[in-house]
Structure formats: C-alpha cells, structure tokens
C-alpha cells in the first residue's frame, strides 16, 4: 500500500535521526574523552576546597625538661550578629546582652553596640574565656527561656535536633600558656595571632613576636598540612570515601640551657633588690663558663606573657641583650687582662697613682675616689684606680687595646639565639681621641650588653677561652627524641691561660680585700669586679633638642660581675643595675650583695661542694 516514495522518505528521516545521534556521540567524545583532563581540573576548583590542617606548636622546655611554654586548645566566644539581630530568632536581645555581660564580665552597653555593628556578620565577644565562662555559655545556648522562638531544624534523617541557639557560639582556638607566669618572660617572649592581612585570628599562637618564640620559630612552628574536602554548592562539606590529605607536621620542642631553679633564684633576688634600691632596670645573667651555656637570664621590671595587653611594651624588651651601657670599673677586669696579655705590665709592677688626680696627656683630668699613692698593678685593679689603669693601658696604644677588647668579643654580637641582640659600641681606634685611651680602660666611652660583659668574664674564668653563649641546648621531636644538639663552641682564645689565671687571683682579691667585699660567698671564694659608672645624660636646649651629653653626678650604673669558685669557676654571674641614684649607687653595695645571694643559692642548687678544707689547707700552707 505504501509507495516507494513513502518508504524512501521515511528511510531518509530515520537516517537523519541517526546522524543527529552520531553528532551528539561525536560531541560527547570530544567533551568526555578528549577534554576530560581539562574538565577534571576545572571541577577541582568547584567541587573541592583545600582545608588547612594546623600543626601543633612545639613547647619550650628548660634544661631539666620542665615545660615553660606550651600550646593548649581553647575556645573563643563568638556572636553570629545576623542571628542576634533577627527578632524571630532572638526575641529578647536586651536580656541576652545583660546575661552575657554578667557571665563574661563585659559592659552591657558595649555588647549592645557590638550587636548593632553595621556591615559585620560576626564578632568575637571574649578572646580568652575561662572554663566557667565556656560552661556558662554552653548552658545559655540550650536555655529556652532566652530564645523561645529559636530555630528548630530537622536532621538529615528526620527527627528534631537538640535545641541549640546559634546566635552565640564557641569556636576552637589555640592559646599559648606559660605555666610559670612571669618567670623567664623576656627569654621566652610571646606569640600572637597572625596580623598579616587575610590571616587575622586564625590561630592565637601562629605569629611569634619576641624571645625564643621568635628566634626558634623555625623549629617550634611545624609545618601546616592540608586536606581536600568535597563541597556542595553552598560550600558545605560533603563526606567522601577518598580523603586526599597531607598531614601537618607538628612543631618540635626547644630545650633551653636555662635552669628553671637558677632562673627562679635570680628573679627572686633581683626582684627583691628592685624593690629596695631605686633604679630603672636590673639585669642578671648566669653563665656556665666552660660551655657558654646561659643558665639564667633575668630582667626587672618584667611582665606576664599570659596577659601581655596589660603591660607597657617597654617592659618587654630583653635588656640583657637588647640594651647596652657604659660598664665603668667592672670593665677594668677586661682591660687589665688585655694589658697583662700585651706584656706592658706585670701584676707586681708599681704604678704611681699620685695624689688622686691626674691629667692625661692630651686627655681628661682623671680622679680616683681617694688618693692612692704608689700601687702595684694588682692593687690598681683591686682598689679600682682610674689613674693607674689609664697609665698602664696607655702603654698599649689605641690599636693594642682595641684589638685586645675585640678578642673578648666587645663591640660585636655574641650570636646568641635571641632576637634583637645589639653589638654594643666600641669605636674603631682611628676614631679615638686623646680622651679615649684614658677613658676606655676604666669602662667609659664604650657600651656593652650585659651578656657581652658576662661572656667576657666567662672567658677569664674559662682559662682565657671565649665561648659562644648558648641559650638553646637541643631540639627534640614530639616523642622526646633529640633531633639536634647545640654543642658548646669556642669563639676564640681571648687571653693566654697564664693571664687568665693571674686575673682570676686578682679578681679574687677584689672580693677579699678590695671594693667587692660584700660579694663574698662563704665557702665558695668568688672573684669579681665592681663597677660604678656615671651615666651620661642628655642636655637639651629650650626647643628640646639634645645639645650634648654630660656625665651625671647623681645617676649611675652599678654592676658586679664575678665567678665562683675563683680557682675553678662553675658559674659566672653578672648583676647590673641601671640608673641607680646617689647615695645607693656603688656597685660594691647594691650589685655585689645580689651577686653573693644568687651565687650562694645557685651553687648550693648545683650541689657544688663548698671547699672550706681547701682554704684551710692553703692557709696552713701559707703559715708553713
């Protein structure tokens, strides 16, 4: 019945359809097979998001593995302002504000202002809440009294979820905790949330600001990992069978050379002295002369790193390495060693210290605190004669003195692993004037940091070898395995063993018969040197511009640096008070007693045997 034409036309239509389907197949082949990789790459951007996995920051430990700083998980109390502003979800905003104000110790008006902030969707209400606050907020969120019309949502599998108010919520954070509070605050330093744009408030311990936290950050911080998360169109996380991730590497623990016990002794003693003597700051450094390990380093006034916002930033600088001062007579120990090493004098050589004043050639008029007459060089140091020192050291010449001091590390950074260390001031000899050669020997016209001075004394105590100061002893991984050890390292030989030995006995005599009598420690026979240096104060004209600097007659730097026991020193201790006021200004009266107290307690703490027998032996030997 159908004609040939009908059949032909219908076949044509069928072929047309098959062609259409073939075109689609070809198109699909191009999309799905040829351009597959392109679409997979594009899909990654849309279907997946990379979530950072934060590493745990390492802890800081003392040499006996006592924890000094660690990171702990904590919560932060936040507000979802959109939900708080929605009267359906939060019918009673005032009640919420007053309750929160009471629970969190905030001002109610301030809370209300926060709630009304324009253009903001969320706000932090309390950065470091206590456990009680966290518990109270958890209860508040489940209290229907406050939020009668609160949201009820059904879970994916039906059924009503537990009632929770979402206007206030807790967010996970990490906080840095210093269990010892103010102890070691300047050394440990502190961390804060990352202030760089886009990183605000990610973690409260991600950005080191000062101290070991900053200088040892490379070991402490660890390495962030990531996890690819499948997300839906609203960027919600969708569970997936395969998890592609790179785990985070937690930070390593830093073990300091600091001994918490000695540190505590130090801080207690300088703290007490800070109360009793009028001064701006006190620094103390305790060093093991043989290894260069810093056993304690303390400054006053201090601060609480757990609560830095309440303290003046001026208190936060580590004066022991970030501040330099004119050391005064204490420095004579170093210049005397340089003179002896330069063979321009022997300890027994007589030096004429005259009537108590002397005009140096092309230099200043020097004064001693009283006329000394003729003294042996040993006595010049013991009695701390300015004139004697200037006369002897003048023989060295500028270059000789300068080179000797450089050997002691004066004028260059010690390289200790602490941030912000300064090199102090020691001008090169070509800039020295006639005054310089007279003033440098008595510790003026140059500036040292407390640590430099302590290390220079440690070189004398260590038979003339200057060590590099160590603050970090070793790096340990999470399991406690030592990953890296910092071995004691000699910087150079400062003076010969013989000179060092002579200096040790001279410095012992400073304590027994010279200016440092109050530094005596029963049974440990310490040696050391006092220092009382006039402070240079600026003089300004009417406009407030500094015209010149003048040595003050009332404001002083008082120092004592020494070691004990003198023959075979176990520890070197420096005590430096800045800006003491006459009459409580002599290094021998305000710094030496602190040295003695720290020394006695520290040596007993270190279980160094007092050697009374030994002294008796030497005494009987002298009698014989």
């Amino acid at each position, binding site marked *: 019945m159908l004609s040939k034409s009908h059949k032909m036309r219908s076949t044509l239509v*069928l072929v047309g359809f098959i062609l259409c389907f073939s075109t689609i197949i070809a198109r699909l082949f191009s999309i799905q097979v040829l351009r597959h990789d392109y679409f997979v790459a594009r899909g990654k951007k849309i279907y997946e998001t990379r979530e950072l996995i934060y590493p745990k920051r390492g802890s800081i430990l003392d040499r006996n593995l006592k924890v000094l700083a660690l990171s702990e998980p904590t919560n932060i109390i936040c507000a979802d302002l959109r939900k708080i502003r929605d009267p359906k979800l939060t019918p009673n905003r005032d009640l919420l504000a007053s309750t929160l104000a009471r629970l969190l110790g905030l001002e109610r008006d301030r809370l209300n202002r926060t709630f009304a902030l324009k253009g903001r969707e969320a706000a932090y209400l309390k950065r470091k809440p206590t456990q009680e606050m966290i518990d109270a907020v958890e209860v508040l969120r489940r209290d229907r009294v406050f939020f009668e019309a609160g949201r009820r949502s059904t879970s994916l599998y039906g059924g009503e979820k537990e009632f929770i108010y979402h206007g206030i919520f807790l967010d996970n954070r990490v906080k840095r905790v210093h269990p010892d509070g103010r102890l070691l605050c300047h050394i440990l330093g502190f961390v804060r949330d990352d202030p760089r744009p886009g990183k605000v408030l990610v973690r409260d311990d991600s950005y080191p600001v000062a101290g070991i936290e900053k200088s040892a950050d490379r070991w402490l911080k660890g390495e962030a990992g990531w996890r690819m998360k499948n997300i839906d169109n609203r960027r919600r996380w969708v569970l997936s069978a395969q998890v592609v991730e790179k785990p985070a590497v937690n930070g390593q623990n830093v073990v300091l050379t600091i001994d918490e016990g000695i540190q505590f002794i130090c801080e207690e003693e300088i703290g007490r002295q800070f109360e009793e003597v009028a001064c701006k700051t006190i620094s103390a450094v305790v060093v093991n002369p043989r290894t260069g390990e810093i056993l304690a380093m303390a400054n006053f006034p201090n601060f609480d790193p757990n609560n830095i916002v309440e303290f003046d930033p001026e208190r936060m600088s580590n004066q022991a390495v970030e501040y330099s001062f004119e050391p005064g007579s204490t420095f004579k120990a170093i210049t005397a060693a340089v003179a002896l090493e330069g063979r321009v004098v022997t300890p027994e050589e007589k030096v004429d210290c005259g009537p108590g004043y002397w005009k140096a050639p092309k230099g200043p008029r020097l004064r001693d605190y009283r006329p000394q007459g003729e003294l042996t060089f040993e006595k010049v140091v013991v009695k701390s004669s300015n004139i004697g020192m200037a006369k002897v050291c003048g023989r060295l010449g500028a270059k000789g003195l300068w080179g000797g001091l450089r050997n002691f590390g004066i004028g260059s950074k010690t390289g200790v692993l602490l941030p912000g260390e300064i090199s102090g001031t020691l001008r090169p000899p070509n800039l020295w004037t006639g005054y310089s050669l007279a003033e440098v020997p008595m510790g003026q016209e140059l500036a040292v940091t407390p640590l430099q001075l302590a290390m220079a004394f440690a070189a004398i105590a260590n038979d003339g070898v200057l060590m590099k100061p160590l603050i970090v002893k070793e790096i340990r991984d999470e399991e406690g395995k030592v990953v890296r050890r910092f071995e004691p390292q000699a910087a150079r030989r400062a003076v010969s063993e013989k000179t060092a030995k002579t200096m040790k006995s001279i410095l012992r005599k400073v304590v027994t018969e010279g200016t440092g009598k109050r530094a005596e420690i029963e049974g440990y026979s310490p040696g050391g040197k006092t220092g009382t240096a006039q402070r240079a104060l600026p003089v300004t004209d009417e406009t407030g511009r500094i015209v010149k600097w003048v040595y003050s007659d009332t404001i002083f730097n008082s120092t004592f640096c020494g070691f004990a026991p003198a023959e075979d020193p176990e520890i070197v201790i420096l005590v430096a008070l800045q800006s003491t006021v006459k009459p409580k200004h002599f290094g021998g009266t305000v710094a030496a007693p602190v040295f003695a107290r720290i020394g006695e307690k520290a040596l007993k703490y270190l279980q160094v045997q007092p050697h009374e027998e030994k002294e008796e032996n030497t005494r009987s030997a002298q009698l014989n």
Partner: protein
Amino acid sequence: MQSERALLIILIIILQGIGLVMIYDSSAIYANEAPAIHDSDFFLKKQLVWMALGVAALLVLSNVDYRLLIRNAVPIFGMTLLSLCLVFVPGIGVKANESYRWIRLGGKVIQPSEFAKLTTILFLAFALSRSSRARYPLTLKKLLLPLGGVAACAGLILVEPDFSSSAVLGSVAFIMLFVAGTKLRYLFCLVAGALGALSYKVVTSSYQLGRVLAFLDPAEHQAGIAYQQTQSLLALGTGGLFGLGLGSGRQKLGFLPYLYNDFVGASIGEQAGFLGMCVLMGLFVVFAVLGFRIASRAKYMEGYLVAIGVSSLICIQAVTHLGVVTSLLPATGLNLPFVSFGGSNLFAAFIGTGLLVSVSRVAEKETVKEPARALRARRVITT
C-alpha cells in the same frame, strides 16, 4: 512482528529503569533540602505514580485499534485546543516561572502541551491520510486543513510561552508532512516561513536572545545565563570515559538545578561516562529503528503516519535534550523521554508507545488473516 513489540517493551523498561535511578539520585538531596518538600523520595514517588498510569495507558492502547482514535481525531484535537486555552483561565490554569503551561485536573497538575503533541500526530495522520488517499501528491488546497490545525496548536503553545514544545510540535508536523509525500517546494516555503518567524521571535524576545547569545559565547556568560550549560559540560567532562560511578555525581549537590529533568543527560554522563552515554544513545537509535520499521510495515496510511510521528516525537525530544546538555543547542528545558522526571511527558511517551504497539498489532492481524482465509478455502476444496 511480535519480537519487534517485545523489543520495544524491553527498551522502554530499560529506559524507565535508568530514569528512576537517575531521578532518585539527582533529586534526593535537593528534595530533602527544599523547604517546601523535605522528603528525599518526593520526585521518585511522583514518577512512580505517573509510571503506573503510563503502563496502564500503554496496556489499554496496545489492545485498541488505533484507527478508532484516528476516526475520532477531530474531536480529540478540538479538546486539545480547548485544554490549551484553559491554561490561561484563572482557577484552572497554573502559573509557574512566569508562564502558563499547566492545568489542575482532579488533584493532578498536567501539562496539556505534552498531550497536544500526540493529538496533533493523530490529527495530522487523519488529515493527511484522507487527502493523500484520493490523489498523490498532495495539493496545496489539501494541505490547508492540517497546516491550519498545527498552526493553531503551535500558536497556543507559543503564547504560554513554551517555545521548545511548539518547536518540537512544528518539527514533528514537518516530518509527517514530508513522509506523507508533500511536494518539496511547499516544504521549502514552509521551512523558510518558519525560520523567518523564528528569528523574528528570538530577536524580539530578550529572554530567548540572551539564551542564543549565551550559546554562541558561553565563556562570557559562564556565571549567568550559560551557568546551567557550563555546569552540564563540567558534569560530562568530569565523567570521562567510564564515569564517576553510580551515586558519585557531584552536580546533584546543588550545582545544577533541574538535574532530574532538564539535565538528566548530564547526570547520566557524569556517572556512567562516555560509554554509558553511548549505550543510552544506542537505546534511542534502536527505538527509532523499531518505530520506523513498524511504520514501514503498517497496512494503512494512518498507521504509517502515526508510527513515524510518534518515533519522530521521541527522537526529536531526545536529540534536543542531549543537544542542550552537550551545548550543541541553546539552553531550553526539554525532557529526555522515559528518563527525565515529568508526569505528563512520561504519560504521553507511554501513550505514544501504546500507539506504536497498536499499529504493529493491526498490521500483523491484517497480514495473518489472509493466509488463514486462503487455507480455509483450500480446505473447502479438498473436502
């Protein structure tokens, strides 16, 4: 002949199976989260109800002589035009997405345009077979009735507005005119006129112009009007050769709206990959071949036209749907027959299949009858 019908039934069972799985997979998350629904089985249940109705219609129609329907084609077509008008009547018509495409009937919302496609096929079969019986080829005068009917129907659908449905309707009518033996120069004029009207419509409607522009330059409109097609390509592309695996699709996570009907092809391509799409394509090709075989074996002009009309309708919808999914055509919402979610469309597809079965059965009856008569006659002679 019977094996053809069996194959046809198996084919739609397979397509229906693919459809149900894909609808559930693509709609469950959306249905669970949509505030008005909150039931992950919502779309699946609806589709199952319509499937049951469709199977019933298929069973009834396959046991009815399609010529009965052809004889009543004029009143049926009249009712169709009436229902297309009812869409605009407040109270009965349902407005959604700024268009009037649905009417509420006995608690169910149906889309008359889906049924209009079928009734137009019946009407054309009636009109064209009557005219072509007298003389071949068709004269211009005899074409006036069928053309007028199609124009009325397509026009009503166009003002709903439902551009794609009227375009499908027009294409089916064109194919039927072609296979009925209309002179090529008439058809050429028809195509020219339709294209002219089409371009006028596209240029004047900012909505459709936007879609066409987006189609021509998808990169420019990635986030806006071409968003769906960009996502659809992404779905297909990430699927690759073997697909992500059933249930592992990502576009269903709220990325591509209407994944369970207008873009179900993308969902299949994403999860079953290129090979899966080839199988799907193969199923539709087999459907087309079966449909055209039934047509070529039909005893009557009406059957021939009905079978080709129905096969073309299914194929055009499939081609357009997949063309949109693969960005070969501008974005438009068109279901993949038997697979996409959509009650009226599914029901109409079942009815169409019922008509095909009916055509096949009638043709078979006629061919079987004659040898039987001859046999009986021979027996008379021998006795």
